[in-house]
């Protein structure tokens, strides 16, 4: 906002007036009237007692107490006044305006005013006819908040139970108690077992009043180190509506680096032959092994069949995605292994190795998020040579001979198959 010069001056003056008005360096009259002999005027915890009124002498004597403690006394002539220090920087002045006999009891007419004090803070300002003994004072409630933990030395991932209780000591009740427990860094809130309603209307004081349970909750440590738990704070008022604040202790927790669990899956891929002829088959064995301490989830191995080789088939549990075999395991427990076999056919002469990509995830038991892992593997080299029977293609006579041989082999295989099939 941009202000023009004149406007700025006006605003400045206005602000000064406002300040003057509110800090009440101005004097405010709080009472202008009669007080009978023996009566008192109470201003918060202060008592002005008119002890004797002497109409003949036109004087009155007074005592001033803070609660029960006398802080001043004296005798005033008409139009005379006295001052005493009030709460904070305030000052109270009483002026004797006149004295009167003739009633049952003589009385004094006074004007009581206060300066340098926020009038809104006055919670009692009245004549108490029954005198000093009839005055009631607001006390200072002192709310003691205790934050306690069931363990103070733990490991990352462990859970502690935090209990917060409160009780009022001091000499007044605590009203409208509102607790705040700040979010705790280095920990995560696992579960809240108990939580007091937003504000407690009243907590009584005294030894016989049981503690008030404020919170019970569990925190899970996520980091190693020594940490002080944050203090629970409370705001409340005394019976006079004055606002107070307390905070709890801050228990210290030592969190040591526990064992985070890991899953460690490796893939071991072997081939039964390191050298094959073209058009021959190779059996490859894959062993997925979890050498870690946590179960691995969503374990997936994508086997990249090299150009020049062809996937023929494999164990159930191997699916093919776009011509490439894939092994998927929902979980692989620690110390477990799973073996799969599949068969490749060599189509082209060359040297190959079979690459594979492994991915899985696991929970380390501490962090909320699963940890994802990716690894790549390569098998040993496979050398594909000119096929044993490639020469056949060049000479048809061989084809006839080999057809006969094949038929004989076929028959033999069939016979053996029959013999061993159960």
């Amino acid at each position: 906002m941009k202000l023009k010069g004149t406007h700025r001056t006006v605003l400045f003056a206005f602000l000064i007036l406002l300040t003057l008005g509110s800090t009440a360096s101005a004097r405010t009259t709080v009472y202008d009237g009669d007080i009978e002999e023996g009566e008192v005027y109470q201003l918060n915890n202060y008592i002005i007692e008119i002890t004797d009124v002497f109409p003949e002498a036109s004087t009155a004597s007074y005592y001033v107490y803070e609660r029960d403690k006398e802080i001043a006394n004296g005798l005033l002539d008409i139009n005379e006044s006295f001052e005493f220090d009030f709460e904070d920087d305030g000052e109270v002045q009483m002026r004797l305006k006149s004295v009167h006999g003739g009633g049952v009891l003589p009385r004094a007419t006074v004007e009581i005013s206060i300066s340098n004090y926020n009038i809104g803070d006055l919670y009692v300002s009245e004549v108490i006819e029954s005198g000093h003994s009839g005055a009631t004072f607001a006390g200072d409630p002192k709310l003691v908040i205790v934050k306690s933990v069931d363990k103070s030395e733990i490991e990352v991932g462990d859970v502690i139970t935090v209990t917060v209780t409160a009780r009022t000591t001091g000499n007044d009740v605590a009203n409208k108690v509102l607790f705040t427990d700040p979010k705790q860094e280095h920990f995560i809130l696992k579960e809240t077992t108990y939580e007091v309603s937003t504000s407690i209307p009243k907590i009584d004081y005294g030894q016989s009043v049981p503690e008030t349970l404020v919170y019970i909750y569990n925190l899970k440590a996520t980091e190693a180190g020594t940490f002080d738990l944050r203090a629970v704070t409370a705001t409340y008022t005394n019976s006079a509506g004055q606002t107070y604040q307390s905070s709890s202790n801050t228990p210290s927790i030592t969190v040591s680096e526990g064992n985070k669990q890991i899953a460690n899956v490796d893939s071991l891929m072997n081939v039964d032959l390191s050298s094959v002829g073209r058009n021959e088959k190779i059996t490859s064995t894959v062993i997925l092994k979890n050498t870690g301490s946590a179960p691995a989830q969503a374990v997936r191995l994508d086997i990249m069949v090299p150009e020049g080789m062809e996937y023929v088939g494999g164990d159930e549990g191997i699916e093919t995605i776009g011509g490439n075999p894939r092994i998927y395991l929902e979980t692989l427990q620690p110390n477990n292994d799973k073996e799969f076999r599949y068969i490749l056919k060599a189509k082209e002469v060359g040297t190959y190795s079979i690459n594979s990509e492994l991915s899985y995830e696991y929970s380390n038991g501490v962090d909320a998020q699963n940890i994802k892992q990716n690894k790549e593997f390569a098998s040993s080299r496979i050398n594909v040579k000119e096929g044993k029977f490639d020469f056949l293609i060049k000479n048809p006579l061989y084809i006839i001979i080999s057809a006969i041989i094949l038929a004989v082999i076929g028959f033999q295989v069939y016979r053996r198959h029959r013999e061993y099939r159960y």
Partner: protein
Amino acid sequence: MLNILVIGNGQCGNRILDSINRYAMGGGKSCNKLAKFYSKQRFKSHVETLAFNTAVNDLKEMKFTKAKDRVHIPHLHGVGANRNVGKQVFEESKEQIMRQIEERGNFDIAFVLTSASGGTGSSFTPLLVKEMKKRYDYPIYCVVVLPFREEGTLYLQNAAFSIRDIRQSGADGIILADNQYLKNIGGSIQDAYNGINDMIAERLLFLLDALDSEMMMVTDLGDFKTVMNGGAGLATIGFFRADKEMPVKTAIQNSLSPSGLLFSTNVYEEASRAMIIIKGDRKYLSIDDISTEIEKLSGAVGHVFKGIVVCNGEYPQILSLLTLESAHELEKLYHVAVQAIHYEKAKKQRVEEGVEMEKTFSQIEGLEPEY
């Protein structure tokens, strides 16, 4: 040429049998899955194999054993790990089983492979041996696999009772292999099983092969029987195959060391008779070395038979067969098993008396639901 019958009962027995058949095809551990199409078992002797099981899936799993050698003994719900059910099923199917054996002709020796702790194998084996003993007079040896100790109380009790039953069945000897002892082969449970099965298969084949070979110092079926006769009817096998040049002395020691044995035993304390078969190229087979090493053993053990098979170009391989006078490890297993039996009994009683559930229900006695 010897006629040898090898029977595998139950899942464990079946698997070891299949491993033997795979080894016999050549190629050992790494034998190709498809070998059965082009190769065949090459046993030195005439060997017949037979697998019995109530679980058809276990039989289906076998890959190197001919279909006609896999015999399914049907029982509606399998036998679980309940040996009583297993025994009953055997009795009901006895004729079917014995007919299979009868059809294979006569033999010089038979081996029966089984786990001690399952349901089928552990209950079939003693009854089968007893029945075979009634009908045939060839010696029968059982290869018995002990469970992992953590497999639970039922398996432990089964193991305890089945070993006793096998001893009482008239079997001529029990060769022990212990899953627990061999488990450090590692990997998944399946790998561990396969590894253990291969170890057993390799040793048995080596033994069969040796019994039917020309040996330099005599060791034949007769000696084998004598060794197996010694001790408490329990035996185990040690083995070592060198994969590089090595003095035969070291190879013998290795075969008797923990990593060579199938069952935890201190050879020098618990063995009562032994047979050491040494195979390899002539240049490794120094008679002096062999004699001193064997004397060391016989000093502690008793009689030690030795046999030497010359195989040109091969590194030394040693098989040691040991009968045991005592088996501390087995005693320990029985100790645990007895506790297991008491535990199971108490549990059963509690359940019968309904104690546990009574407690649960009594909590709401006299209460009404509140809505």
